[in-house]
């Protein structure tokens, strides 16, 4: 837990991550369900360039614009990497030249922020955030409670309630990260 704090305390400033505003209609999942569906779960932050911004490169891929964002793994919860690994995520949308493209709920990384990420491996081997911004839980530091994980804001997503009833969500005020991660380790495949 202490190492978790040391890895994350520096530089964490959570302003909830904004996401695109177009529509995606998505089934509402709990964090445990997302963990069970994920190919990897990590605590990570986006790599930063010399100017302090997020490293990101957009390009065309099969008629769509994708943006590739390298992230640094701080804590490996489940999956093939260890702490310190650099992984490049492929995210939907971006801007190339004078053309922009967005899809609802696409995850957006902010410089200096850390997230608990549920990741999906695509058929071509690339990695992306599972269920877009729904699979991206922001972290914050609370002087009294330590590191906290918050619910995804998922602003570009319109949620459909699950058939089996309501989802048990992460508490809006945040939950301590360490026991949350321990729980997810049991859920992750």
């Amino acid at each position, binding site marked *: 837990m202490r190492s978790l704090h040391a890895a994350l305390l520096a530089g964490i400033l959570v302003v909830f991550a904004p996401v695109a*505003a177009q529509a995606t*209609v998505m089934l509402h999942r709990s964090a445990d369900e997302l963990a069970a569906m994920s190919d990897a779960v990590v605590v990570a932050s986006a790599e930063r360039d010399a100017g302090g911004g997020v490293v990101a490169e957009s390009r065309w891929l099969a*008629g769509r614009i994708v943006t590739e964002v390298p992230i640094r793994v701080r804590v490996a919860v489940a999956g093939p990497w260890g702490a310190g690994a650099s992984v490049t995520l492929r*995210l939907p949308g971006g801007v190339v030249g004078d053309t*922009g*493209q*967005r899809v609802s709920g696409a995850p957006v990384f902010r410089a200096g922020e850390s997230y608990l990420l549920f990741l999906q491996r695509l058929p071509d081997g690339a990695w992306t955030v599972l269920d877009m911004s729904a699979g991206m839980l922001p972290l914050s530091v609370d002087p009294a409670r330590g590191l906290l994980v918050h619910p995804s804001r998922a602003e570009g997503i319109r949620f*459909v309630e699950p058939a089996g009833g309501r989802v048990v969500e992460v508490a809006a005020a945040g939950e301590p990260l360490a026991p949350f991660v321990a729980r997810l380790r049991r859920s992750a495949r």
Partner: protein
Amino acid sequence: MRLAALAAALSLAAPEARAWCRTTTMPAQPDPLVCPAEGRPLAWPSGCAGFRFDPTVRPDPGDIAPAELERALDGAARAWAGLSCGGSAGASPSFALARLPDAVTDAGYEGLGRDTNTVAFRRTWGLDAFHPPDAAAVTVVTFGARSAAILDADTDLNLRGPSNPRGFRFATDGDAASADLQTVLTHELGHLQGLAHSGRREAVMWFQAGRGEQRQTPTDDDAAGLCDAYPPGASVCDPSAAGAVLRGGGVGCAAGSGGGAGAWWLLGLAALIARRRG
């Protein structure tokens, strides 16, 4: 007593959740109840836009009969027509949305004048970053980064089938276990026109929907958003864009698209033009 007064004061001072919002050039709507603060709001430049249904994949007729599918597609487009911007004249937004004749189209955006705003059911899903496994519907919007003009908008629906067992079942009868097709489409078409999510629970552009929930009619709040994007009398349907449509492009005016699904829209457009000239 003091606490009550303080609470009342805070209540008065707290900013009311913004209702309708518009999509901007920046991916920034930090809270679904707060409008995007960054970027320029997106809008179609021509005062009109059309979409085509790609009939390659259709729902099982046992779930949605062909006539019901047509009704949902037409109804979702028609729902946005004739909204009132208020005022004594009762003017409407200067924008017309049309369902154009069905066409089999390629997904993606080329920018060569052949792009079409497409609504399509998909029976393969989850193969790329644009189609997350739990998504029932996804809309990809292409726009000019400098002009803030919407160039293209495609909606994919994640249809359950033998090759896509995790897809969604859609319905038009309010079935409690299914996503209501017309509700989803009406919401997506709001995004096609440049609207973001609204902070009003009853609005079509509200960001949540229960299974089987039907919310198919734009409210005054939805209308206000559209009126902001397309104030009465501010936009004119650009005939050159219509030409692009006639050649199969995605931008709008469906003049010449003939009768059937597009006829109601042509009538609306004629009324709009007549009103402007009057």
